[in-house]
């Protein structure tokens, strides 16, 4: 086999936008052989997905190939017409998309959609197509396939929808599957199940797979070779052990370093920023120091009888950092809002600095004196900034409301100090959220929360929407702020590695209940609860030291 199954050579793609053409790919090259799994990794905007769509001939109308070539099994399909590509799509190569629920037709039963995929290329009676669809459902390990065949996408979980998508992709036995971030947005245990299934299916059927992902761990675990993309080019390509062990290209080195692993520390994430030497362990607080936060039997029920938080209790000492870990639906975000007093608990008590703060209803809490002492940083910094406020006004808002500052030199000085302390360049203060990058928005969100010198900072997945290199910088910033200001952090995250680095203690949540609580390092080394062990095992990871 000398001709590769898929060969992409110097591919250039650009999109027509209102400000002229924007190049998305600038000469990307790679080759994929029969039966091989190639990983395509890179951060957002690196051109991974565009590569996949160009191969499938599915670029939207604004995009077009401006140079280079794509060969499938020796045939040039670079600018193939729709008529030539249609018989190949699904039969010769097929694709699995990100966000499986949106990728399925909401008003058509999943069985009918799989049957559509079959009948697009084979002359089958409806009866036969249905039988084959049923067989496919069983192959992608859908339990009770006979009942689920008539289900609609909204009746299935995200993981199951992705299995349906896989069934559609393999229906006509293509030789190549392109999986574009197939598990992004799925919980880590579901991710593992879906990826294992995909790996088994491709191996058993001798299919080749192009796995596109931003998660280096995932690529390391499931790929034979990995290509790293940056700004529309492939900058390096090697087997995962070599690539992650001894990265050659400077960009790969940065990317690998920024990726949290079981052994990485906050300071190892990004070599460019000089940090003070490893923090000395803080002297233990003298015995009898009052607790900063005490949460007792907290319960939150939503209308309709859903119990999001079920009798959760924990305590925090001043200056401590506590991690709240769990998958979606574990109640971690609800707890963060209950502690911040943005919503009212159904039962239970929140005691802050020796006084109960849960008596006052959330709608009046803006008047409470503790308002400035408990602040929060939200998940999606873009979504948590008022689109009509510039960065200055966003940071100044709590100062105006909670410190009573009027416009003037004092306010300006305080806002500028805050911006400096979070590393936000002062000229950016005049910009509106849509004119800032993701990392800059995250800094504005942090600056807003720390501007009134809180004692407790609740961080609700502050880096979940960021690329790893930006995440690294933000994590370093958070770590430095904590040490400088003596803040206590309640850090909510689904990423165990991040929590381990930033938090001394962690609490593992599941379905609104505490599963396990204890020292972060200890939980990571020797989890006590079965669920915690399962979570830790499901994290895809690579170990640059061992490789």
């Amino acid at each position, binding site marked *: 086999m000398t001709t590769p199954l898929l060969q992409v050579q110097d591919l250039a793609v650009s999109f027509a936008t209102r400000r002229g053409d924007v190049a998305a790919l600038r000469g990307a090259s790679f080759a994929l052989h029969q039966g091989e799994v190639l990983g395509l990794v890179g951060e957002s905007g690196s051109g991974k997905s565009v590569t996949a769509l160009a191969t499938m001939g599915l670029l939207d109308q604004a995009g077009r190939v401006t140079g280079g070539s794509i060969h499938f099994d020796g045939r040039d399909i670079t600018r193939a017409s729709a008529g030539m590509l249609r018989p190949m799509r699904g039969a010769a190569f097929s694709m699995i998309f990100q966000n499986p629920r949106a990728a399925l037709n909401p008003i058509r039963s999943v069985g009918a959609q799989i049957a559509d995929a079959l009948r697009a290329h084979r002359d089958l009676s409806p009866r036969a197509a249905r039988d084959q669809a049923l067989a496919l459902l069983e192959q992608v390990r859908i339990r009770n396939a006979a009942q689920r065949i008539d289900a609609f996408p909204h009746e299935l979980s995200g993981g199951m929808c992705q299995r349906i998508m896989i069934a559609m992709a393999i229906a006509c036995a293509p030789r190549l599957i392109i999986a574009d971030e197939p598990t992004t947005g799925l919980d880590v245990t579901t991710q593992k199940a879906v990826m294992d299934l995909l790996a088994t299916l491709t191996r058993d059927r001798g299919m080749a797979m192009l796995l596109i992902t931003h998660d280096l761990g995932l690529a390391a675990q499931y790929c034979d070779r990995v290509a790293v993309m940056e700004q529309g080019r492939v900058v390096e390509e090697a087997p995962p052990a070599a690539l992650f062990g001894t990265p050659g290209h400077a960009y790969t080195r940065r990317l690998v370093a920024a990726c949290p692993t079981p052994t990485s520390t906050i300071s190892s994430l990004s070599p460019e920023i000089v940090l003070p030497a490893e923090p000395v362990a803080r002297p233990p607080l003298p015995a009898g120091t009052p607790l900063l936060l005490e949460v007792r039997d907290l319960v939150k029920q939503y209308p309709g009888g859903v119990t999001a938080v079920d009798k959760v209790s924990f305590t925090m000492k001043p200056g401590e950092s506590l991690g709240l870990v769990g998958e979606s639906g574990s109640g971690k975000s609800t707890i963060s809002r209950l502690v911040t007093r943005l919503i009212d608990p159904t039962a239970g008590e929140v005691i802050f600095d020796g006084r109960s703060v849960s008596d006052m209803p959330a709608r009046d809490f803006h008047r409470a004196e503790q308002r400035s002492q408990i602040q929060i940083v939200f*998940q999606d910094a873009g979504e948590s900034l*008022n689109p*009509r406020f510039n960065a200055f006004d966003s940071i100044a808002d709590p100062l105006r409301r909670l410190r009573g500052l009027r416009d003037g030199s004092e306010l300006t000085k305080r806002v500028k100090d805050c911006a400096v302390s979070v590393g936000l360049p002062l000229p950016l203060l005049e910009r509106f959220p849509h004119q800032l990058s993701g990392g800059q928005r995250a800094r504005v969100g942090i600056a807003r929360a720390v501007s009134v010198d809180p004692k407790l900072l609740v961080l609700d997945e502050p880096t979940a929407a960021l690329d790893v290199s930006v995440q690294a910088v933000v994590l370093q910033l958070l770590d430095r702020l904590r040490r400088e200001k003596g803040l206590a952090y309640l850090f909510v995250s689904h990423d165990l590695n991040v929590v381990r680095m930033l938090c001394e203690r962690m609490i593992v949540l599941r379905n609104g209940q505490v599963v396990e609580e204890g020292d972060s390092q200890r939980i990571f080394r020797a989890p006590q609860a079965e669920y915690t062990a399962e979570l830790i095992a499901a994290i895809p990871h690579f170990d640059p030291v061992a490789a």
Partner: protein
Amino acid sequence: MSASMTSPGRSSTLGHVAWVLRGNPLTALAMAGTVLLIILAILAPWIAPYDPIASDVPSALQPPSAAHWFGTDQLGRDILSRLLHGTRLDLTIAAAAVGLSFAVGAMIGSFCGFVGGRLDRWVGRFTDVLMAFPLFVLAMAMVAALGNRLENIIYATAIINLPFYIRFARTEVAVRRNAGWVEAAQASGNSRGRIVLFFLLPNILPIVAVQISLNLGWAILNAAGLSFIGLGVQAPTPEWGIMVAEGARFIASGKWWLVFFPGAALMFAVLCFNLLGDGLRDILDPRMRT
């Protein structure tokens, strides 16, 4: 627009407006048309060639000519002069009615949308009742009940617009109620009233502005429709709807100019407002500003 936008955002806002207008000449035309209408409305008494009410029976029903550009009606009144005076009246009715229903509706709607709960359900019920009503008939009945006076026509038009504004502001606010920046505002110590006034309202303003522009057109049609069936402004006042109603009797005998010119004026006004609304959507959307 929030006050904070003026100082740092001005140059980019003006630039953005200019950019949108360049890319969308129709919006520019609509803007020019709207300005023209306003100027005509203000200057009507000075530029109208004839008295809009004085009849001149000998020269009745004349087709358009050099003396009477748009012809004369059954009483010999100059149609152009009546049109110009009508501009004044129709624009006033539309602007006052829409302004009134916007001010009341947007406030009620955004407050309900934000607070939710029982109040919201009751207001929702009430708008449902209003909307289940054939609205044009409601306007008819109101004018009939309160009397054929200008302010009553304005109130009637405002009330039939009200449920749309309430419902519109309510959904737009409810969509944003759980947005991160609203929670952040709460954490920053803003009361609920402040959040509605200084966070939510400015954010729904662009979409409401579009709605206002579209509704101006609708309000003009409504007011003219009321006059047309005899429940609005009364003859001999120059008003577009009455002019069409009076001309209707002569259309079957081919006297087209009696209906055509006031009809065209109505269409032009509504067209300008509608196109302006579409253009505003592009200009005011902060996400489209680069």
